[in-house]
């Protein structure tokens, strides 16, 4: 089958403003959008620029807007999006070139919520044990791959990039509800700001965009509840 694909193009060294290039490529229904982009790069235009790494939905490199929806190009099949495809960079972050955006502001927000284990007590001889029930409490939010599909689908983030964003809150959630961690109060104080969880309007775009099916809006609501109640279980 033939697929017509419109690709967002922008070269800051040559272009005054972005434009779309159209390519017609041969594809199988089970080809992924990433396969099409690689065909274009290999056989049509070697200057096309996009991120990819594992190509199996684990590294989170190739998040992009496919037919207006944030997806991982390596997880979307041609048969699921049809023979007319439009590919754009994710919104809300500055485009560096073609489908590549500047991820630094995204990772700055991620770092701001202290996304690492905090416990100043001396570690036990073997390991810090945790019950299966306590592990289950934050299991969902351990799945985040930092692809930014959620944050860049969020209307609050589009309107103000100072908003910490769903991905950062998800990664804060992962540690806030970990009963071995002692940094919950610090993280909740950080998120208890105008640009923290209170900017979330529960639009649910993030939950729909997440390629890992994380219940992001629910995780944000749980963080809000922890802030208002002070209870972490």
């Amino acid at each position, binding site marked *: 089958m033939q697929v017509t694909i419109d690709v967002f193009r922008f070269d800051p060294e040559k272009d005054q403003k972005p434009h779309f290039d159209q390519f017609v490529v041969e594809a199988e229904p089970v080809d992924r959008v990433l396969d099409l982009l690689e065909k274009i790069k290999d056989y049509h235009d070697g200057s096309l620029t996009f991120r990819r790494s594992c190509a199996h939905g684990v590294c989170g490199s190739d998040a992009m807007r496919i037919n207006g929806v944030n997806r991982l190009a390596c997880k979307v099949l041609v048969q699921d999006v049809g023979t007319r495809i439009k590919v754009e960079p994710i919104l809300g972050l500055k485009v560096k070139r073609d489908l590549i955006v500047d991820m630094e502001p995204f990772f700055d927000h991620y770092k701001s919520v202290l996304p690492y284990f905090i416990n100043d007590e001396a570690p036990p001889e073997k390991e810090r044990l945790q*019950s299966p*029930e*306590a592990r289950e409490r934050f299991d969902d939010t351990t799945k985040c791959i930092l692809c930014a599909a959620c944050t860049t689908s969020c*209307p*609050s983030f589009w*309107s*103000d990039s*100072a908003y910490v964003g769903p991905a950062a809150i998800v990664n804060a959630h992962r540690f806030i509800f970990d*009963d071995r961690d002692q940094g*919950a*109060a610090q993280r*909740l*104080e950080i998120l*208890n*700001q*105008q640009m*923290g969880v*209170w*900017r979330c*309007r529960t639009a649910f775009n993030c939950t729909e965009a997440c390629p890992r099916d994380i219940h992001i809006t629910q995780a944000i609501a749980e963080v*809000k509840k*922890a*802030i*208002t109640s*002070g*209870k*972490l*279980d």
Partner: protein
Amino acid sequence: MATRQVKISQNYETIAWKWMRYSAILLIPLVFGHVLLQDVIVGVYEINADYVARRLGTWFFQAYDIALLGFAFAHGVNGLRQVLRDFIHNPKTFRLVSIALFIFWAAITAYGGIAIVMAVNAKLASL
């Protein structure tokens, strides 16, 4: 397993968020009670100035309507504040806007409250 607890300081955002939830819970019985009374029990064709004066002649309905006005208007104004946040990116400006909206809410609610109590008393005196 013992419940883990932390102490988080409550700020303007926390209070505003709680206010939206709690005021919505209070609004539901107030609004449904209002609709039930006006549209079902009394009926819109029976509502005139005399009915309104008699209804608001009781302290219960004066308090009821002032609460309905205060909660509904606060709910709307806080919603407006959230919408404006999308367009006002300077934190200082937004703080000023928040204060202005609070004064706006307090003034309109006070004016409405005075109208409910005073105007009705004046109408009752003329009956």
